[in-house]
């Protein structure tokens, strides 16, 4: 509750600052609309914004799920197999040197204007942080526990399932916290490059028509969506990590 009050206070302060900036600097509404105009636009265009928000939201969530599954799978394979480590890790680092943004036009070219290139963008952008954080966790199982499980003649897969994966959950959780913030970026870039729906598309469209108030309304919805996503994943991560306390 305390957090919520603080959040509301900060938001109100920001909106007031924004409002007075517009008034005192005498900014025209096609440069910076006042927050009250943005709110009005939000209310009058609610169903339009909602429709596009649902599209972007599904892109983000699907990208997040796919990236998490793929990233976790990669991390486990890397942790199990030294051969995979020597082959795949340099490739992963290389793939990070490639700006994912530059791939967006290609993905649109190959996969069209639908949901898929956006999901893939979100996936690509979170894949590395998820893989890397989970992998680090898997490689840092407390040594004493590993020794014990070897003396117990545990099989590598059962040690992975019963010891290494559960011990690496805090690592995965910190990767997911990053992913929750990155995934929306991927989806929006995908929409900017080529889309017929989604908040990114709506913002681009509004910008082109000098409807800056609509652009801000869409932007604020996007920020709120990202915050809610981050908050839920943070909660989930905390409750999983709490199980690990020594």
């Amino acid at each position, binding site marked *: 509750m305390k957090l919520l009050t603080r959040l509301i206070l900060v938001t109100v302060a920001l909106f007031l600052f924004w409002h007075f900036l517009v008034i005192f600097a005498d900014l025209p509404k096609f440069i910076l609309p006042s927050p009250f105009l943005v709110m009005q636009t939000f209310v009058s265009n609610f169903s339009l914004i909602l429709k596009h928000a649902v599209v972007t939201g599904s892109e983000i969530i699907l990208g997040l799920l796919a990236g998490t599954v793929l990233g976790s799978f990669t991390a486990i394979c890397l942790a199990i197999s030294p051969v995979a480590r020597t082959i795949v890790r340099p490739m992963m680092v290389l793939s990070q040197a490639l700006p994912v943004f530059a791939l967006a036009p290609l993905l649109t070219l190959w996969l069209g204007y639908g949901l898929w290139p956006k999901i893939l963008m979100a996936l690509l952008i979170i894949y590395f942080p998820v893989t890397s954080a989970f992998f680090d966790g898997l490689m840092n199982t407390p040594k004493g526990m590993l020794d014990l499980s070897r003396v117990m003649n545990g099989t590598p897969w059962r040690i992975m399932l019963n010891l290494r994966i559960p011990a690496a959950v805090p690592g995965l959780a910190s990767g997911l916290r990053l992913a929750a913030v990155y995934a929306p970026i991927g989806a929006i870039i995908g929409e900017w490059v080529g889309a017929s729906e989604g908040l990114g598309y709506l913002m681009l469209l509004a910008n082109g028509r000098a409807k800056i108030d609509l652009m801000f309304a869409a932007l604020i919805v996007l920020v709120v969506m990202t915050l809610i996503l981050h908050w839920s994943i943070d909660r989930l991560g905390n409750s999983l990590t709490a199980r690990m306390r*020594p």
Partner: protein
Amino acid sequence: MQSLLFEGSAWVDEIQIFPRISFTMQAGSWTCMLGPSGVGKTTILRLIAGLESEIVLDGRIELKEGGRLTGQISLMSQTDNLLPWLNATENVVLGNRLRGEKPNYDKANALIEKVGLTDHRKKKPYALSGGQRQRVALARTLMEERPIVLLDEPFSALDARVRAEMQELAAQHLQGKTILLVTHDPAEAARLGESILVLSMNGVKDVCPPEGAIIRAYDEHTVLACQGQLLRLLRAEA
């Protein structure tokens, strides 16, 4: 019952960790190994357990009666190594799970009763005291039913009262097993050792243990005398 022979020197690349030593862990009895930190006590224990990958033994570790070491050993160390996300009972059956066997809860609960933790068996490790955690670790060790037990300073992090209790509990329940206890506490060695080895840079020295069956009373004068003798020896070797 199995006796275990250890003979050899340990190396990392060209550097010698300890010179050629030789000792036997007698079947069904407690061998206590004392020595200053860094002399290689834990290395010896890890070599026997087959856990060393960097340090190489130039020598042999074998069972006098023959047969392979794998699957004959269980391990208990200073840190309890309980998995924090599992309750006491689940920690005790960990070995079952790791080998893909069906967890034997009846046996686990019987062992938990033996170590006096029946009321705490559903608790996670964070809710247990240091002594209780080592009791769970002892039950987990017993669950494995291995003839050879390696103890790496398992009681050294406990306070004096709990340590004495744990020594008694371990002596009672590990009876009949071939045990190597690595410790830096002369009092512990004098109470529990049926054979006492002092390891130093110059090799290993066999010290005659006090008379009487274990576990010996801590205030018996032969035990106290042995304790003093061990301490003197440790200081002389340093």
